[in-house]
């Protein structure tokens, strides 16, 4: 039960922080490079036992809500779907011996800090790269896409680690 409530809370926290905090914080002309897509935290930290179809559906649901608020069509939803599809493969890659109990809460304390950061980075990079590629849809501007992916991924990672740190207190 607690785990359900936790995830529902994260769902709304992600929407709130993304739409009403991050979208407004202003860094002048550096803003496009300090624009973390924090909402990805919900899909990343969903319990490992979540069935794949449900995972994909939740990704679509959250993405489409953000898209509605930002008038971006299906841009955010598309990037979250890609992450949701690849998430089980990333986990299999990071835990080949399947030593993670899928029913336990998923945080840095349980699976180890280094593995947690690697997992987060991979997920965030995939989602961010997909997002900025589709947003530009022009591979002549690949250097901007890559640059934006890297800087924004870094800030997203930072925010999620802060969340992880605070939630374990």
């Amino acid at each position: 039960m607690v785990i359900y409530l936790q995830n529902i809370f994260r769902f709304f926290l992600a929407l709130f922080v993304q739409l009403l905090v991050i979208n407004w914080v202003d860094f002048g002309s550096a803003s496009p490079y300090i624009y973390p897509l924090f909402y990805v935290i919900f899909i990343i930290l969903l319990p490992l036992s979540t069935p794949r179809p449900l995972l994909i559906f939740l990704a679509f649901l959250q993405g489409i809500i953000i898209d509605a608020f930002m008038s971006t069509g299906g841009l955010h939803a598309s990037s979250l779907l890609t992450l949701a599809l690849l998430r089980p493969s990333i986990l299999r890659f990071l835990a080949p011996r399947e030593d993670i109990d899928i029913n336990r809460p998923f945080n840095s304390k349980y699976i180890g800090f280094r593995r947690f950061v690697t997992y987060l980075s991979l997920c965030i990079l995939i989602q961010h790269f997909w997002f900025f590629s589709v947003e530009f849809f022009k591979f002549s501007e690949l250097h901007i896409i890559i640059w934006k992916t890297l800087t924004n991924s870094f800030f997203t990672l930072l925010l999620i680690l802060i969340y992880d740190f605070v939630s374990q207190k």
Partner: protein
Amino acid sequence: MRNILKILQKYQHLVIFLFFQIICFSLILRQNDFHNSSIFNASNHVVGSVYEQVDNAKSYINLKEENRRLNEENARLKTSLYGKDSANNNKFLIHKDTLSRLHYKYISGKIINVFTKGENNYLTLNLGKKHGIEPHMGIIGPYGIVGFTKDVSKNFSTVIPIIHRKFTISVAHKKTNTTGLLQWQGNDNFNTATVINLPKYITIKVGDTITTKGFDGIFNAGENVGYITEVFAEGGDDYNTAKIFLFTDFRRISNVKVIKNFYQKEQLELENNIEENQ
């Protein structure tokens, strides 16, 4: 048959993924098409209401500054209205307007949400069909043009600002009245834009003002857009390209006016006829 079902069951997540991904891409394409209204966007009633509530709370912070801006605009408009007449000393001249009907009407509204960090930025306006708003109506702020409306619901509408990848209108170099094309290109940020196709035979200086040309029926001619900060010789042998600094500060925009052009439909119909005949 059973085998096909088995395979489908094994890869059901892939089928679901593709299904949703196709929906997403069709929504993206629909959103980027200016002549088509999209389904999920900020003109939605729920989304608009949320933004309106948040804006209500936020507007108190900027009240003083916004007041000053509007006052300044009033002063400028008064100057352009009365200043000229007294300068020419023709106070008693009767202006005969050949058009008895109104050409443009201004509706005042408020921008309740701004996003300036992406490639395809959108604003949300607190006016909708109820207030007489239609798609493709120009919007001007206290200092210059802002954009035009796209999706319109009963109470809200979304606005495509200058700082959107697909925004393009014809503009004029104010001193010589030569036409150029305003675009928002890859290296522009939230307060710059690019004017292309400025002919080489006119002299363009840094600091010159760019105004609207009024060709597309969205804006009236002579509205401020920005001033030139850099001139490049990028457009081949015949044309110059100029970087401009926009007068509108998209991060602080709040009170705006929507331009209703009573002859827009007629103009566009006529122009479409010509294109079809060719």
